[in-house]
C-alpha cells in the first residue's frame, strides 16, 4: 500500500477511537465507531488473498450489525429521555440492546464466533491491532454507561466468555486462534467486574493490552504463526524462549507476575460484594486458559520439540527491529509490586 495512504488510514483508525472515547453526544460516538470500522478494513486486508478478504468481510458484517443495534438503542434512549448525552441510559430496553451491541463489538459470548476466524485470517500485525486497539472504544462506552447496565445479562455474558475462551482454546495449535480465545476470556474477566468497580476493568484492560502486545511482538519477531514454528525459537533467538515463558505465565495469571494483579483485584472486589460462587467459578475456568499457555511454554521453552535435523542447524539469522519489546516484557511481568498505585486509575 502507498505509505501516505496507509498512514492516513491508520490515523483515521486512531481518530475514530479517539472520537468514541471523547464524545458526549451519542451520534458522535456512533460516527466514531463507523469511522473506526471503515478505516480498519484495508488494514485487515493488507495482503490480497481470499483468506484476508473473507476475514475482513466477516469483521465488517458483525461490527456493522453491532453498530446498527447501537443506533437502535440510541434512538430508544432518545425517545424516552429526549436528550443525546451519554451520562445515563434511561430505559432498560435501550440499556440491554446497547450492552448486546457493545458485546458484539468486543467479542463476548454469545457473539464471540467472529474472533478466532477473523484473527486467523489476517496477518500478525493486523491481528495485534484488532485484539488490542479495537477493544478500547467499546470498553470505554461500557465504562461510561456502567451504572445503568443490567447486571444479569452482563454477568452471564462474562462468565460464558471465560468458559468459551478457556474451552475453545484447548484444541488450537494456531497461535492467532490461541490469542483470539485468550482475548475472549480476558474480555469476560473485564466485563464481570464492570458493574462493581469500573476502575478494575480499566486496570485489566491496561495489563491485558500490555501482555497481548508483548506476545504478538514475540510472535512477530520469530515470524511464527503455529506452535510448531514457535517451538523453533530456541534455535533462532534463545533469549526469547525465556521471555515467552514468562509472558505466557503472566497471561495465565500466575503470581508473582503482573498478570495476577487484575485477577486478584477482581476476585477481591467480587467477594467484597458478597458473591462467592461466581469468582470461584471464574478462577477455576481461568485454569483452562492456563493449560493451553502451559502447553505453549512446554513446546517452546521447557522442551526441545521434535524437529528435523536441518532445523537444528540454523546458519542464517534475520534481525527484526521490534519497537519497545524490552520495556513491554518488563511491564507485563514485573508490575505486581505496583498494585497500590491502582488508585491513579480512578
Amino acid at each position, binding site marked *: *500500500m502507498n505509505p501516505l*495512504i496507509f498512514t*492516513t*488510514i491508520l490515523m*483515521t483508525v486512531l*481518530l475514530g477511537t479517539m*472520537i468514541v472515547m471523547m464524545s458526549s453526544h451519542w*451520534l*458522535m460516538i456512533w*460516527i*466514531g465507531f*463507523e*469511522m473506526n470500522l*471503515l*478505516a480498519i*478494513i*484495508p488494514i485487515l*486486508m493488507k495482503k*490480497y488473498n481470499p483468506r484476508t478478504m473473507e476475514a*475482513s468481510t466477516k469483521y465488517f458484517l458483525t461490527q456493522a450489525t453491532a453498530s446498527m443495534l447501537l443506533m437502535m438503542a440510541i434512538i*430508544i434512549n*432518545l*425517545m*424516552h429521555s*429526549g436528550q443525546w448525552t451519554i451520562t445515563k441510559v434511561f*430505559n432498560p*430496553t435501550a440499556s440491554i440492546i446497547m450492552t448486546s451491541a457493545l458485546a458484539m463489538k468486543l467479542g463476548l459470548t454469545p457473539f464471540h464466533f467472529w474472533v478466532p476466524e477473523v484473527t486467523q485470517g489476517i496477518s500478525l500485525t493486523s491481528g495485534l491491532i484488532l485484539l488490542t486497539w479495537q477493544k478500547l472504544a467499546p470498553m470505554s462506552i461500557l465504562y461510561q454507561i456502567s451504572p445503568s447496565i443490567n447486571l444479569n445479562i452482563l454477568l452471564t455474558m462474562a462468565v460464558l466468555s471465560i468458559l468459551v475462551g478457556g474451552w475453545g482454546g484447548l484444541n488450537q495449535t494456531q497461535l492467532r486462534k490461541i490469542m483470539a480465545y485468550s482475548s475472549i476470556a480476558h474480555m469476560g474477566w473485564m466485563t464481570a467486574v464492570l458493574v462493581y468497580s469500573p476502575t478494575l476493568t480499566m486496570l485489566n484492560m491496561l495489563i491485558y493490552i500490555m501482555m497481548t502486545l508483548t506476545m504478538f511482538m514475540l510472535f512477530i519477531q520469530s515470524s511464527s504463526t503455529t506452535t510448531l514454528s514457535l517451538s523453533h525459537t530456541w534455535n533462532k533467538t534463545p533469549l526469547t524462549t525465556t521471555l515467552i515463558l514468562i509472558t505466557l505465565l503472566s497471561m495465565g495469571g500466575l503470581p508473582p507476575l503482573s498478570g495476577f494483579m487484575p485477577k486478584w483485584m477482581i476476585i477481591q472486589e467480587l467477594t467484597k460484594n458478597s458473591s462467592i460462587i461466581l469468582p470461584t467459578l471464574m478462577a477455576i475456568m481461568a485454569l483452562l486458559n492456563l493449560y493451553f499457555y502451559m502447553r505453549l511454554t512446554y513446546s517452546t521453552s521447557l522442551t526441545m520439540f521434535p524437529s528435523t535435523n536441518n532445523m537444528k542447524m540454523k546458519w542464517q539469522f534475520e534481525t527484526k527491529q521490534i519497537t519497545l519489546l524490552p520495556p513491554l516484557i518488563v511491564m507485563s511481568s514485573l508490575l505486581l509490586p505496583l498494585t497500590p498505585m491502582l488508585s491513579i486509575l480512578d
Partner: protein
Amino acid sequence: MMTYIVFILSVIFVVSFVGFSSKPSPIYGGLVLIVSGGVGCGIIMNFGGSFLGLMVFLIYLGGMLVVFGYTTAMATEQYPEVWVSNTTVMGVFLLGLLMEVMLVLYVLKSEEVGVVFKFSGVGDWAIYDIGDSGVFSEEIMGVAALYSYGAWVVIVTGWSLFVGVLVILEVTRGD
C-alpha cells in the same frame, strides 16, 4: 386521507425497503430506492422540512443514486434477478410484506403499539426544546446550527466520507 398521509407514506417507505432487502439484482434495488427516497422526502416535508426534502431529491436521488445506477449498469449480468424470478427472493419479499401488513392492521386496530417499545402515534417523536425561534422555521435553523455549533460534526463527517473513498479505492485495487 390527508390526516393519515404520513402513515401511508411510511408504509410505502417500509415496503420499498423490504423490496430491496430481499435482494433482487442491484438495478431493481436502485429502482425501489428511488421510490423510497421520494416517499421519504414526502414524509420529511409533512413535518415542515421542505429544504431537507429537496436535498434528498437533489443530492441523494440526483447525485448518489445516479452514480450508483450507472456503475450498476456497467456491472450488470445478462439475466438480472427480479422479485418473482427466484423462489428465495420472492419468499423473502412476501414475508416482509406479510409482516408489514400485520403491523399496519395492528396499528389501525389499537391505539398504542407495543412491540419493542410503546409507540402511540407520531406525537411521541416530537421533542420540543425551549428555543424560541420566532419567524424562522426549525429546520432551516437546524441547517444553520450545523455550520455554527456543529462545525466539528461537519469536519468529522467530511473526513469520514473522504476516508470512505480512500478505503474503497484501496480495497478494490487488489494488487
